[in-house]
């Protein structure tokens, strides 16, 4: 029932991106009978093409186009996201967590932070709670809507038991968008441990095999894979008229549109808005105050692995089965604002060498450390990062990519607050493993913050255009029919992994766009 639309059909809503934001928004619009054309830069894979093979899948699904990092981030690979139908929901690890109220009111909770431009989210918390409930139902999140939680893997049991040894309360397995029993036409998880390589059982929620086919079934949706958006066109009246993209053969195509929603992940969204210049928007759409690309946030990540006294075999089972929120609250007595989660993570031998033994990676000690692979347990922290104006995505002055577009430049410096939080979090994870007799722990060094899989805030929502790029519904200030529908709109980063919030916001935005179309505002 998938249909096709003509390029000059100006009644369609064009959604750019098919991940958590774009895929969800597109389906929610199509369910209302609104015609949608979804442009996705990546290829459409079938689940039958997935393999339990990290390096093979990384070559198929990762966003490997050139980007340049500076500051504290990796220079050549500043981000770790996907370029495929389904976007980063193909490799996400399915922690589906809600934002907390104190995070939602970041400015009020943390007051003035040096260097940070904090604002409160311009969305009512109760209203947001309603959409979180809808999003949890859509994703089939365990521990919500009477959906049973998963059995805990060895790696989860180590983390939870170690924390209890330190006096923290028991924590069940996390709220996961991974089926613990068959649901919504998808099978239950088989604990294969390859969450990051595309779920071969479709047990993990991904728009690739939920939102996209459901949208197609409505007869109001066309997916165009391998379609790289290069510009959004603005008419003299300020309204968007359409999107220009390169199709899989490199042909330039101009698709007219009634409205456009951008959901390319925070880096691509910021790049596309800056590339889309017009007489009215000479510095790019929504960039009249120079805010597009600024306030880039990426969460305070850090990893610890530990050589435990017995076998763990961390690779068996759900990668992020555990998420401890014992230090997720705001308590300045710890020396930093906001908090962090501690989440299990599992690593293959190659992953262990990259992430957890980042010190001198050779010699007798290194070989001996790797010999104990079966005994390793690993965990990461994911903490709230704060918006700073100089952490930003810009267009490169000279380097271009295979599309002829300036590559994105990503500048990110980790703040003092984030450094202090990282010290606290990594120290606590070491203590958790130590409480169970770990003979050795390894942590990511202070100077190594790696590639970001959570990229946020580059077109943030605010109450007015002096504070952000988008209004409280994710519509770009100054443009009546242009929306942003991904993590770019986050006013602050919060502590939780972002996907559930992206989905909840997309569901909320779809209702808003439907109402605006009915009212002929757009």
């Amino acid at each position, binding site marked *: 029932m998938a249909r096709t639309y003509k390029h000059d059909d100006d009644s369609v809503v064009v959604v750019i991106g098919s991940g958590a934001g774009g895929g969800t928004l597109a389906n929610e619009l199509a369910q209302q009978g609104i015609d949608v054309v979804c442009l996705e830069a990546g290829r459409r894979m079938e689940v039958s093409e997935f393999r339990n093979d990290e390096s093979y899948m990384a070559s198929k699904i990762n966003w490997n186009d050139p980007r340049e990092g500076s500051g504290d981030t990796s220079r050549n690979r500043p981000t770790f996201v996907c370029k495929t139908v389904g976007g980063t929901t193909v490799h996400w690890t399915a922690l589906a967590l809600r934002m907390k109220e104190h995070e939602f009111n970041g400015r009020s909770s943390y007051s003035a932070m040096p260097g940070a431009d904090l604002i409160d989210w311009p969305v009512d918390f109760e209203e947001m709670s309603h959409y979180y409930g809808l999003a949890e139902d859509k994703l089939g999140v365990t521990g919500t809507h009477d959906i049973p939680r998963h*059995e805990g893997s*060895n790696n989860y049991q180590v983390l939870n038991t170690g924390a209890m040894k330190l006096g923290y309360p028991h924590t069940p397995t996390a709220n996961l968008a991974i089926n613990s029993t068959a649901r919504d036409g998808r099978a239950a998880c088989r604990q294969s441990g390859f969450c990051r390589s595309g779920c071969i059982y479709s047990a993990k929620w991904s728009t690739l095999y939920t939102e996209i086919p459901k949208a197609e079934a409505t007869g109001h949706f066309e997916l165009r894979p391998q379609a790289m958006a290069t510009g959004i066109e603005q008419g003299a009246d300020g309204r968007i008229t359409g999107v220009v993209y390169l199709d899989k053969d490199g042909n330039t195509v101009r698709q007219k549109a009634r409205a456009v929603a951008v959901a390319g992940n925070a880096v691509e969204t910021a790049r596309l808005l800056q590339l889309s210049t017009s007489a009215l928007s000479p510095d790019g759409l929504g960039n009249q105050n120079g805010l597009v690309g600024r306030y880039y946030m990426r969460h305070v990540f850090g990893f610890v692995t530990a050589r435990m006294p017995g076998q763990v075999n961390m690779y068996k089972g759900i990668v992020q089965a555990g998420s401890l929120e014992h230090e997720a609250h705001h308590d300045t007595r710890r020396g930093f604002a906001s908090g962090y989660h501690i989440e299990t993570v599992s690593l293959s031998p190659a992953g262990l060498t990259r992430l957890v033994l980042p010190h001198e990676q050779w010699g007798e000690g290194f*070989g001996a450390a790797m010999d104990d692979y079966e005994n390793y347990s690993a965990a990461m922290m994911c903490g709230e990062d704060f918006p700073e104006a100089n952490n930003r995505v810009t267009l490169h002055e000279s380097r271009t990519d295979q599309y002829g577009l300036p590559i994105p430049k990503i500048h990110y410096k980790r703040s003092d607050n984030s450094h202090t939080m990282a010290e606290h979090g990594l120290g606590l994870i070491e203590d958790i493993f130590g409480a169970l007799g770990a003979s050795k722990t390894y942590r990511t060094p202070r100077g190594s913050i790696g590639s970001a899989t959570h990229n946020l805030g580059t077109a943030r929502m605010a109450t007015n255009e002096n504070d952000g790029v988008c209004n409280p519904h994710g519509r770009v200030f100054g443009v009546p029919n242009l929306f942003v529908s991904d993590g770019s709109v986050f006013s602050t980063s919060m502590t939780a992994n972002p996907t559930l919030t992206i989905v909840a916001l997309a569901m909320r935005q779809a209702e808003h766009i439907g109402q605006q179309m009915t009212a002929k505002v757009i």
Partner: protein
Amino acid sequence: MATRRQVLRAASGAMTIVLGGLQIACTAEDAAQIESAGLADDQILALVRMTQLLVPHERLDPAVYRAAVNQLVDNPVVGQGIQALGPGWLDLAADVQVEKLRGIRDTAFFNTVRGAVVRAIYSDKRTWEMLGYGGDASRFGGYIDRGFNDIDWLPD
């Protein structure tokens, strides 16, 4: 005129590494299977030994080291850099060889070899088997019935 295999076999006495408590064997047969247009035989042997010193595993199938070296022998950085090991490096005791490696650890040669060897060896299924990493679980339907929650040494 000795054949290549004979030359390598003659050198094989020096090819058992004794490093700390480790003994790692590399036979001439292994090195002889490596073909390189650019490297001399003793350079190939040196590269094999360097690889073993970088990532020493007593129980690792020598073919895994060989495969890692095979990826490197035609790399121009390796061809130019291998002289940095110095004459007679191959004949030194293993701990002295390690000291020499430490002295060149900031060179492009060293880091090219180290990076490629670590990547190759820990992505090799034979290494996974030695380490106890199960990898691909699809052939038996995941680890749900194969020990994902079988930990038995945690305190109550």
